[in-house]
């Protein structure tokens, strides 16, 4: 029979190992987290959603494509995370229609070479997504704070891809079955060739 203190130590070490294993699983393999906010409204509810984030294959934007829903760290706030849809991959040309609130921040945050078209505060501008960056947009364009405000997001900020979502709000007794989020291409991004041909016409 082990002594009392050694039993306490043993239990403590087991607890530390279990918590660390769970943390490792959450940070690098798979995570479910609740989301809130208006920015992804047709796809995700304002409150009461749980998103299932695949981090094993998609962290740092490794396998993501245009149209995927991803979780990323917010470029203008170290502590908060965003859930947005990928609207443009590196090299694509995207159209940013509005720079209303944080225009000075966005203008400085975007590397200069990114802006390929004439900049006009009324009509917006064409932007080439720089190497290693993605263009993130919310599905609810009217109420979304996204790349139109803070510019292209470095892929290293991407935490993972949202593959499933389940609704479980305070008014739901049971959570809904996880449903697959489709990879809708809602935003218009184009390749450089398409942009040039559009310019010619």
């Amino acid at each position: 029979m082990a002594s009392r203190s050694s039993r306490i130590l043993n239990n403590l070490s087991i607890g530390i190992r279990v918590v660390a294993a769970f943390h490792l699983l959450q940070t690098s393999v798979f995570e479910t987290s609740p989301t809130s906010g208006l920015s992804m409204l047709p796809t995700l509810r304002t409150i009461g959603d749980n998103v299932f984030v695949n981090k094993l294959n998609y962290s740092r934007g490794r396998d993501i494509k245009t149209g995927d829903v991803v979780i990323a760290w917010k470029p203008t706030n170290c502590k908060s995370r965003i859930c947005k849809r990928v609207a443009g991959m590196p090299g694509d040309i995207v159209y940013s229609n509005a720079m209303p609130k944080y225009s000075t921040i966005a203008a400085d945050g975007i590397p200069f070479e990114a802006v390929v078209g004439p900049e006009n505060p009324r009509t917006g501008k064409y932007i080439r997504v720089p190497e290693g960056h993605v263009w993130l947009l919310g599905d609810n364009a009217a109420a979304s704070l996204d790349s139109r405000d803070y510019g292209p997001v470095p892929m290293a900020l991407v935490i993972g891809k949202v593959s499933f979502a389940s609704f479980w709000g305070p008014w739901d007794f049971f959570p809904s079955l996880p449903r697959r989020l489709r990879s809708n291409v809602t935003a218009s991004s184009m390749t450089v060739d398409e942009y040039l041909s559009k310019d010619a016409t």
Partner: protein
Amino acid sequence: MASAFRKAYQHAQANQGTLKYAGRTIAIALTWVPVVAYVANHVVWIGVIDGSSMTPTLNPESNGLRRDIALLWKLGLKEYKSFHRGDVVVLRNPRDPETSVVKRIVALEGEEVRTRFPYPESTCRVPQHHFWVEGDNIHSVDSNTYGPVTCGLITARVTRVLFPFGRAGLVPRTGGRDPREVLVKSELPFSTPPPWLKGGKKTEKE
């Protein structure tokens, strides 16, 4: 050949207790892997500095034969206010998410900095929760190429050189090429440095 296998099997049969003990020990050791991973990702780890972008502060011999080993602190990286002008940090390359670079923080949010050649404008105001980072070496691909970097890219602070024992010690807060001119210094009240950074050579008066 067959007899050799039979001999090995007999040997294993004879030493079954030892094998069981070894397997058990290995299994117990494996359960500590997540704990080590946690410490490596969130507390402290050591890293080998590659490349010459921080010469002469790190890797002063530019031939790449001797590489510095440095202590990387990873606590409190989500606290923007815990970063100071002059800190040396490891960050994910904004241009290539799979690689990391080591740079020195030159300007903090809200500050205006005078830029160098590849940057298209002569000054730049650093956006919210961003840093202006530069390498100490003049041949360094830094914020002058890719613009201000966001706080979330930073993966560690380089606080101490460990390996060439002759240069072991705290990484100085200043160094490298001519000191960058920060045109508009931030008026934000910065918190005191975290305890593991206290005692560093603070030449800058804030």
